């Protein structure tokens, strides 16, 4: 790696000519202390790129604490923006360019191995001459260290330049940085100004004007002083697109599914879905109930569903654990219910803001006894929206609990996707208040499908007492073993009946080859990108991404038979075979691998990572390569 010594841009004569480097994609990070607005800078940059026609994926960089100390390694807050010429489906590998507001948050990203070795860093230089000599010394030391390590650091007088325009650059420096980045990436300044006005549309005109002034100043400064100029050619989509994060897509999905009631208890990283839903739901007569705890949230939703309005409860790991008994009740009494679990790191309080796919098995097998429920996992932002619509429909058709899994990476990541066209068929039918036909029982289970017709309060002739106790077809407490077995049978059959309606999933790549990689949930973009790179290298690898985890879709056995080897790629724990006491007799596999192995009796390997960050395509690529090379 070549070391490029930086020049103090201020002292540098303007060369006039900027050489524009054309790229197919680029990853840029903007990082600051929390409260300095790097996140907003990144979001706006992502929006400008999307509006320019670039593919975009943004990732929030979230410090572990709400108010981390200023200038701390653990306090890095900001945004990663990956932009490309074509669609972008994940946050990519290490960053190519970084804007850092201090050297400590920068160090945080270096330690997290999020930066490409030798990448370019635009670093706020106000610390070099700081009157606190310890700060100045720390800055100089870090600067020297990173330069020695091969990074190209360009010191930028953001603070000094902003101070010429505003009294407190802590508010506003982010827009200055945005201006610099717009110049670097050749974005249209008018479009950027428009975006700033939009970003601050809820604020005063004065504030918008100040931010536009800062944006323009940053833009002009970069043109005059930086030799960095990138062009990521854009190909505007020929379809109408929207940009949201995954949690907003979930909330919009709740609206689009026709549900009217959401009961929740705040928990990271699920809460922002309910925040947004609280804002918009009343416009369609919807209610977000913040219950006293997750048990109350789940049982409240069950009460609403029971009385005819299928409800949703949104949570994450610890809350999901608390809901288990209530979920069992809904399974037993056949009450439709949508449960969204935006997974985070576990067990226990685990890693609230971090990415993990640790809840698959608990979603399928959670709650005591045999409690069959449907589990689907969203694999993209767009999928978060449609998964809820699908979930509501299945819940009400089969009178089942449907668990929708998302995760911390999808929750906050933003990506353009095709603007959904509302279809009235997405909505729930009106509450059935018709007279129940004489003689019909509330659990008149169909012998083939296990389905029965749900009775709703208000229906004359349908009065029965719902119970979580084992019951017979009439809903009466079942004291004889046959009735209990009949209930278990019927509830189990419903999963099979649903499975019969599913289609086999599509293989990404050829239908035969050396290796099939199977994934689920938010890792889709990274896995498919890794597979594409290897296929471009001539490797015979394909991938498969599962949306339905319970029941598993048909056709998997046949698909797997087309490959010499199969492995899953997941963001949850799997024992490593190079541990001295781990072998085939005690190895714990990743969740999906365990499921597939037990169902299909196929020797499926697994590669997993639990670093709390979105899995990177490069890491998947290397894992696949190693697997292929071991043969």
């Amino acid at each position, binding site marked *: 790696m070549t070391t490029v010594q930086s020049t103090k841009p201020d002292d540098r004569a303007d060369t006039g000519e900027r050489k524009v480097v054309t790229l197919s994609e680029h990853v840029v990070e903007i990082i600051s202390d929390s409260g300095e607005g790097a996140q907003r800078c990144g979001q706006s940059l992502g929006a400008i790129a999307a509006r320019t026609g670039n593919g975009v994926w943004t990732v929030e960089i979230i410090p572990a604490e709400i108010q981390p100390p200023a200038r701390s390694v653990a306090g890095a807050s900001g945004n990663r923006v990956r932009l490309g010429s074509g669609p972008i489906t994940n946050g990519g590998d290490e960053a190519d360019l970084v804007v850092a507001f201090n050297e400590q948050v920068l160090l945080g990203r270096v330690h997290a191995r999020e930066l490409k070795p030798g990448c370019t860093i635009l670093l706020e230089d106000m610390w070099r001459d700081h009157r606190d000599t310890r700060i100045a010394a720390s800055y100089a030391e870090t600067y020297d260290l990173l330069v020695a390590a091969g990074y190209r650091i360009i010191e930028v007088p953001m603070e000094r330049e902003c101070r010429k325009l505003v009294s407190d650059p802590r508010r506003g420096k982010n827009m200055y940085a945005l201006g610099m980045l717009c110049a670097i990436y050749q974005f249209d300044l008018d479009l950027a100004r428009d975006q700033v006005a939009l970003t601050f549309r809820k604020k005063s005109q004065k504030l918008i004007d100040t931010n536009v002034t800062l944006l323009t100043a940053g833009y002009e400064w970069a043109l005059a002083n930086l030799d960095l100029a990138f062009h990521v050619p854009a190909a505007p989509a020929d379809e109408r697109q929207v940009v949201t994060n995954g949690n907003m897509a979930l909330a919009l999905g709740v609206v689009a599914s026709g549900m009217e009631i959401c009961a929740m208890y705040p928990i990271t990283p699920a809460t922002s879905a309910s925040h947004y839903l609280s804002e918009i739901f009343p416009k369609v007569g919807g209610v977000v109930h913040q219950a006293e705890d997750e048990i109350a949230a789940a049982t409240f939703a*069950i009460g609403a569903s029971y009385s005819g309005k299928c409800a949703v409860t949104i949570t994450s790991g610890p809350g999901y654990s608390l809901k288990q008994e209530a979920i069992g009740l809904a399974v037993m009494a056949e009450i439709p219910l949508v449960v969204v679990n935006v997974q985070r790191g576990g067990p226990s309080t685990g890693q609230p803001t971090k990415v993990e796919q640790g809840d698959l098995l608990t979603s399928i097998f959670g709650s005591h006894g045999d409690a069959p429920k449907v589990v689907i996992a969203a694999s993209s932002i767009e999928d978060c929206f449609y998964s809820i619509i699908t979930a509501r429909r299945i819940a009400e058709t089969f009178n089942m609990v449907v668990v929708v899994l998302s995760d911390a990476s999808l929750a906050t990541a933003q990506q353009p996707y095709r603007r959904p066209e509302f279809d009235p068929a997405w909505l729930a039918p009106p509450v059935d208040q018709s007279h129940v036909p004489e003689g019909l029982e509330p659990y008149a289970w169909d012998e083939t499908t296990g389905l029965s017709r749900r009775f709703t309060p208000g229906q004359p002739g349908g009065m029965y007492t719902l119970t979580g106790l084992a019951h017979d077809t009439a809903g009466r407490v079942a004291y004889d073993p046959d009735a209990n077995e009949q209930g278990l049978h019927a509830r189990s059959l419903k999963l099979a009946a649903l499975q019969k309606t599913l289609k086999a999933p599509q293989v990404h790549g050829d239908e035969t080859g050396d290796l099939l990689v199977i994934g689920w949930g938010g890792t889709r973009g990274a896995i498919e990108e890794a597979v594409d790179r290897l296929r471009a290298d001539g490797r015979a690898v394909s991938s498969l991404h599962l949306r339905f985890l319970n029941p598993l879709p048909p056709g998997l056995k046949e698909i797997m038979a087309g490959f010499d080897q199969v492995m899953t790629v997941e963001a949850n724990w799997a024992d490593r075979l190079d541990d001295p006491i781990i072998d085939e007799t005690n190895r714990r596999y990743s969740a999906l691998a365990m499921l597939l192995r037990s169902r299909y009796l196929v020797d499926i390997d697994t590669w997993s990572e639990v670093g709390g960050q979105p899995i990177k395509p490069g890491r998947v690529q290397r894992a696949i390569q190693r697997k292929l090379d071991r043969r």
Partner: protein
Amino acid sequence: MIDLTHRSAAECLLRLHDERLEIEGFQKGVPRWCAGCGDNAVLTAAQRLLRDEGLRPEKTVFVSGIGCSSRFPHYMNTYGFHGIHGRALPVAEGIRVARPDLNVFVNTGDGDSFSIGAAHWIHAIRYNMRMVVMVHDNQIYGLTKKQASPTSPRGTRSNTTPRGSYLEGLNPLTVTLGVQNVSFVAQAVDWIPEMLYDILQAAFHHDGLSFIRIVQRCPEWMPDNFDRYLHDPSRVQLLHHPSSLSISSSLASLYPSHLEHDPSDIHRAREIASSTDPIPVGILYHDPTVPRYDEIIRSEATHSSASVRRLLDSEFDKFAVTGGGLGD
């Protein structure tokens, strides 16, 4: 709305006659409670209430948790929800919010509501959604065969406290009266059915959450528990007031201890509530003006295909790549 197409003309005619049901119309099955169990009296009072108020069975839901007392819905010919231990209240709240047209009743035990469901009890009082809550307080865990409950008097010998329970019993009335938004608190005893009925009726007409603690005998596990009140009726103090319940002359002569109490006076209500001997019976507190959360959170907008389309359109416009940007 009722779909008339599913109903024959004959049925409609029939309904004209059975619009008001006899008490049998609300009964279902044979209760499996022990002989002498106080739950029977509550069941009778509730069935009478439904008859007298002319409630439609299909428009009425009884929600319960788990316990002897929570078997209640099985014996009502209405819709019933016999859920899980401690969670009757949040289930009932979900029903109430989803279906303002239904009559919602809750039957729960002392363990169900004051132990495992304690959080829901406090918050249900605070939410003040319209429903009638009957807590069957036998001061013991009945169904699980005699363990101390939060309301068991200190020294209660039970299977988990063979040498006597350690702590003073919790007073559910004073706790309830300490919760912000409390709007209706009453105490009944199963052995004075007339008062039980009057309280239940007042509770049903209250526009908010009515909390009734029903002192309930459990001859199986606590055979002598309330003997001091039963043997000495003067230790039961009947509450009355012109604005509230009056006491019949027959009752007045049976129970000599009376207290005129204005249920709008919360301070006095708290004083009365703290007495366990004599035990107050009647309405302790009533404020019909407390706002109901189930009404507050209901939005003006109606849910329809058109309103959903409108909302999605306006949100997607906001986030459109061409005219908008990333959500902030």
